[in-house]
């Protein structure tokens, strides 16, 4: 507000002061043009204008609304104290006694008028202050009409003042008798309506509800004090002085008087309200505390994701929510009907003993079956009640409230204990229930959060595994020779596949070809594949014989692979100069071979064992190495079992026979891409069924330059 509004307030206040001065001047100086009555009325008009302007000025300032409720009365007294003292002492200077009007008519000098203006202006300030104080109180918890009633009162009061001004007296004052003069009647009616509006406005004291017990007491005493002071002031000498203000300025006098009455009426009604609220103030505060702690808990709990910390928090908060001496939480074990103590707060040894007892378990079952809260308000007297280890009955009161999960039935039970008997009433039970519901939401949130974190982590893992796996496969088909044509494809079934293939140049004329299959589907499979590739890459150039290589790879792999995992591998070495192929089958699918002379496809299956299944003794003994010709026209077909294990809608396997016949079909029709034809076949066979990993490496020794 400050920097902009203060000058405005000051400016308006100055205008108000000027208006007051003018009003007094006009009222009291004899301007021959107007009659005495008219001068008074015009003067009073100025006073009324001053009142309105001052109201606007004061309304602009830092609103009373920023001051806490319980301090407003006090603040009001403190701020206006000085003004009130000034006014009282100022008025006291005017000689008490009779014939004031006479003395004034003798001395119509400027300083008196100035003096009177100051007095009137003080009265204007104080009245405005009172109005704004009451405005602040009345408008708390307002309805649509509250503001209207208030301003109706203000306007009514100004109207009353104006009419009285015409009449030259306060119609509602003492010793004024009603005549048939219409102005009299109008004034009377307006006056009564105004007082009626004061009473209506004074009922708006619901701000009392927002104070706590101590604040209510303080306000009560402050209000009583102010009311008593007002009543006392009425009875003392200075009351006469206020009467004398009316002589200087009727308007100011009447307005000040009525405003003071308004304040008094308001204070009296507020005092009654405070008195009536006091007996229940304690319980009221407790309710407010409970609600606010429930709200706080709610917002804290939903942010708490750590499960253990959440359970701890829940028990601690239970203490607060029902003002218990001890609290603990039993959570149901996942697959059984028994409960386990999950968290506790302020639980002494004897209660702990009780919790471990058999009788207590019975309590748990009772609550668990009924699925409703249990209150034992007098543990000493109750039957079937748990005892501590020494078989001494524990006194006090106990309540247990079940936590119901939406999907899993009862998930746990919260217990609260008070040393006092009859410590838990129906409201407490309801309170804990509401709290328990919130707790369940928080717990389920926490679990869901953990689960979704886990899912995300798994997904991340799979993504990483896929990255690894893609990097392990050859980026491009190598060039071996002009007359060697190579096709290769590897399609993983899921995000991470287990298939592997590689080409390694061993010497100028010798190439190693490796096609394998790692058991399992996740990150570990990808890692084993990486291991395998490492071993093969490093050992292949040392052991040109596939059998020796496999033996060495198995030896190295065995201690570095999980017992339950293994790898099947077909390792072959092509000698481009000799046109021969040596190969070893370590538990892998047979090698497809088209022999150009016999003009037929064969499945070659040397004896062998998968890698990682045996330390070496059996592996080395049974592994075979075969050698065949790789004459022009020969074709080699390496594959993984994903090719033959594709299922159709009748749960039939694609199988070896179909594979062979597809290969024969390709050979007869001289297709350019074996892999495409086979993939098409597989697709039409499987339709929607998801196949396993599919890997194929096809190597053709072309006959002539035409590429056959």
């Amino acid at each position: 507000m400050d920097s902009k509004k203060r000058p405005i307030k000051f400016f308006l206040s100055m205008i108000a002061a000027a208006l007051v001065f003018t009003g007094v001047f006009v009222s009291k100086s004899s301007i021959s043009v107007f009659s005495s009555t008219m001068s008074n009325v015009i003067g009073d008009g100025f006073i009324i204008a001053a009142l309105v302007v001052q109201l606007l000025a004061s309304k602009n300032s830092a609103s009373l609304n920023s001051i806490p409720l319980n301090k407003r009365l006090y603040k009001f007294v403190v701020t206006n104290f000085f003004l009130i003292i000034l006014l009282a002492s100022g008025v006291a200077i005017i000689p008490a006694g009779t014939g004031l009007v006479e003395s004034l008519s003798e001395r119509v000098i400027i300083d008196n008028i100035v003096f009177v203006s100051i007095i009137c202006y003080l009265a204007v300030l104080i009245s405005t202050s009172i109005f704004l104080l009451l405005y602040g109180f009345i408008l708390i918890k307002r309805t649509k009409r509250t503001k209207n009633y208030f301003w109706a009162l203000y306007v009514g009061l100004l109207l009353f003042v104006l009419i009285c001004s015409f009449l030259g007296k306060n119609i509602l004052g003492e010793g004024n008798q009603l005549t048939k003069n219409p102005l009299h009647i109008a004034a009377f009616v307006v006056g009564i309506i105004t007082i009626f509006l004061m009473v209506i406005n004074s009922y708006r004291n619901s701000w009392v509800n927002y104070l706590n017990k101590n604040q209510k007491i303080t306000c009560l005493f402050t209000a009583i004090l102010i009311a008593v002071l007002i009543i006392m002031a009425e009875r003392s000498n200075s009351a006469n002085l206020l009467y004398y203000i009316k002589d200087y300025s009727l308007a100011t006098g009447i307005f000040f008087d009525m405003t003071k009455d308004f304040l008094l009426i308001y204070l009296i009604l507020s005092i009654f309200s405070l008195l009536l609220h006091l007996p229940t103030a304690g319980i009221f505060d407790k309710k407010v505390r409970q609600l606010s702690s429930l709200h706080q808990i709610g917002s804290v709990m939903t942010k708490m994701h750590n499960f253990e910390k959440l359970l701890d928090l829940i028990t601690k908060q239970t203490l607060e929510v029902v003002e218990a001496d001890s609290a603990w939480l039993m959570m149901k074990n996942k697959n059984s009907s028994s409960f386990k103590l999950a968290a506790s707060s302020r639980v002494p040894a004897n209660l702990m003993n009780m919790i471990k007892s058999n009788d207590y378990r019975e309590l748990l079952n009772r609550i668990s079956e009924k699925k409703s809260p249990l209150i034992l308000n007098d543990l000493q007297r109750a039957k079937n009640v748990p005892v501590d280890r020494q078989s001494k009955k524990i006194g006090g009161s106990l309540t247990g409230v079940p936590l119901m999960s939406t999907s899993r039935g009862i998930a746990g039970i919260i217990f609260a204990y008070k040393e006092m008997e009859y410590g838990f009433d129906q409201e407490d039970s309801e309170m804990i229930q509401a709290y328990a519901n919130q707790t369940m939401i928080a717990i389920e949130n926490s679990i869901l959060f953990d689960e979704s974190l886990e899912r995300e982590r798994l997904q991340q893992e799979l993504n990483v595994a896929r990255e690894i796996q893609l990097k392990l496969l050859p980026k491009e088909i190598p060039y071996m020779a002009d007359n060697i044509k190579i096709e290769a494809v590897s399609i993983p079934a899921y995000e991470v596949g287990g298939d592997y293939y590689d080409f390694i140049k061993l010497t100028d004329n010798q190439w190693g070809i490796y096609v394998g299959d790692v058991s399992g589907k996740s990150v570990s499979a990808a890692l084993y594949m990486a291991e395998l590739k490492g071993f093969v890459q490093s050992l292949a150039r040392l052991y040109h014989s596939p059998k020796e290589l496999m033996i060495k790879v198995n030896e190295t792999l065995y201690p570095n692979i999980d017992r339950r995992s293994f790898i099947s591998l077909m390792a072959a070495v092509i000698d481009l100069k000799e046109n021969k192929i040596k190969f070893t089958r370590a538990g892998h699918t047979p090698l497809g071979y088209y022999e150009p002379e016999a003009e037929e496809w064969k499945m070659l299956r040397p004896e062998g064992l998968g890698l990682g299944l045996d330390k070496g003794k059996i592996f080395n003994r049974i592994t075979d190495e075969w050698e065949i010709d790789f004459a022009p026209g020969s074709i080699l077909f390496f594959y993984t079992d994903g090719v033959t294990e594709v299922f159709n809608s009748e749960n039939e396997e694609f199988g070896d026979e179909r594979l062979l016949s597809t290969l024969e079909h390709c050979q007869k029709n001289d297709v350019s891409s074996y892999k495409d034809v086979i993939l098409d076949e597989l697709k039409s066979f499987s339709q929607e069924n998801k196949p396993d990993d599919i890997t194929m490496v096809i190597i053709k020794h072309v006959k002539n330059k035409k590429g056959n």
Partner: protein
Amino acid sequence: MHGFEITRQDNQTISCLYVKGFLDAHTAPKFEEALQQLVDEQRFNIIVNFNDLTYISSAGLGVFMGLIENVRTNNGDIKLSNMTSKVFKVFDLLGFPNLYEIYDKEEQAVQKFTKAEQ
């Protein structure tokens, strides 16, 4: 998702597990649990009868590999029997007949166990 069932029959020192349905990555844990149970009970003469098994994957094979060492160290064994040709092919391709005794009939496996104890 294909189903998997397992039944157990004990006969003195020998326990026989009858597997039925699909033994793959999803159902392998169930199979492992049954085998582990036998090991926990110190029953190390085990026969697995594959008569009703339709399919086995590498995960199923892995279960054997995980437990066989322990069983053999305790002077027992896991013998396999009654495989269909399809199921046998899977074992055979990998070279399992070199690691396990595979019989056509359960009785042959039982006999082998009894002979060994004498």
